[in-house]
């Protein structure tokens, strides 16, 4: 009888664990710091987060990290004349946008890596032709110095100039999911429909996290 109670307790525990809400991992570098709170030393983890930024968008307005406060967002790197992976990525991104259209907790940020040609007027033309209006999906121009290092260091996406490439620019097609604390919570291949479906699942999970708080 005693054993039966233990077994019941154990199964109860296991069930409780598996039923707990699934949360997304926090990606990137992390470091621990010791803090003194109320006279006690506690160890805290500091996660990698997207540092402050400021870019010109498709409406020739400077937007910054502040415009993304209070929202989760999906970031990617592209350029308007790219005819390799970009059309596939943005065909898929449109599907994601459609799902969350008008949801003020969800935003999109596409960085152009063609810093020479993709100035706001070209970005605007591109957005309009793609059928994107409003400010939920931002297309931004950054300086050459910053954009490649932001890609690599902030979002962990490789993007660089390469004279040997057919269009002179090389970049990866990741959709990077950022939470409201500006931490990386997922990266998905934007050219693959199954991974984009996973992104939308994970976005729902992430939004739930905030609803529960």
């Amino acid at each position, binding site marked *: 009888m005693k054993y039966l109670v233990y077994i019941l307790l154990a199964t109860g525990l296991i069930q409780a664990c598996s039923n707990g809400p699934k949360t997304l991992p926090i990606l990137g570098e992390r470091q621990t710091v010791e803090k003194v709170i109320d006279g006690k030393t506690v160890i805290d983890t500091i996660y990698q987060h997207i540092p402050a930024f400021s870019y010109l968008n498709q409406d020739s307005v400077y937007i910054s990290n502040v415009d993304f406060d209070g929202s989760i967002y999906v970031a990617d790197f592209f350029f308007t*004349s790219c*005819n*390799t*992976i970009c*059309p*596939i990525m*943005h*065909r898929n991104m*449109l599907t994601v946008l459609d799902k969350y259209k008008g949801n003020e907790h969800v935003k999109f940020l596409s960085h152009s890596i063609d810093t020479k040609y993709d100035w706001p007027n070209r970005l605007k033309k*591109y957005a*309009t*032709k*793609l*059928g994107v209006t409003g400010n939920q999906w931002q297309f931004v121009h950054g300086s050459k110095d910053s954009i490649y290092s932001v890609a690599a260091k902030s979002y962990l996406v490789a993007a660089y100039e390469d004279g040997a490439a057919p269009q002179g620019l090389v970049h990866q097609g990741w959709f990077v999911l950022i939470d409201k604390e500006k931490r990386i919570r997922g990266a998905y291949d934007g050219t693959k429909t199954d991974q984009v479906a996973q992104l939308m699942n994970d976005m729902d999970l992430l939004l739930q996290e905030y609803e529960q708080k």
Partner: protein
Amino acid sequence: MSKNKFGIFSILSLIGIFFYACQSEEEITYARYYTAGKQLYENKCANCHGNDGAGLAMLYPPLTDSTFLKQNKTKLACYIKNGLQGPIQISGKNYEGIMPAQATLSDIEIAEIITYITNSFGNKQGFYPYQQAGADLQNCSN
């Protein structure tokens, strides 16, 4: 009974073989072009025009406008090989953009792509031989 079944099976098989053998030379070539064209299309064209030929919003036109494809059939080879710069009207909408040239494509590859496109996405224009591509390319305006 089982003998009977075998007999029916044999007859059906024979009829099948007969029909297969009767597939004309052109039909076989068409099927070969179509398959190769699909592969080339997916490698060279589908990024922008989509696997389903639907294009992408107003950025890249769809390939479902049968009337346009029919009216411009002799120009398609030039469009593919030399690229195309807008504006063009497809399905009543004006597209302006640049389609890059694919100068390395051979006549037969262009013919395969045209055979695939003009017989997919709701189009049905039949076989487009490589000799035709060669002739059409002689008359490119650009």
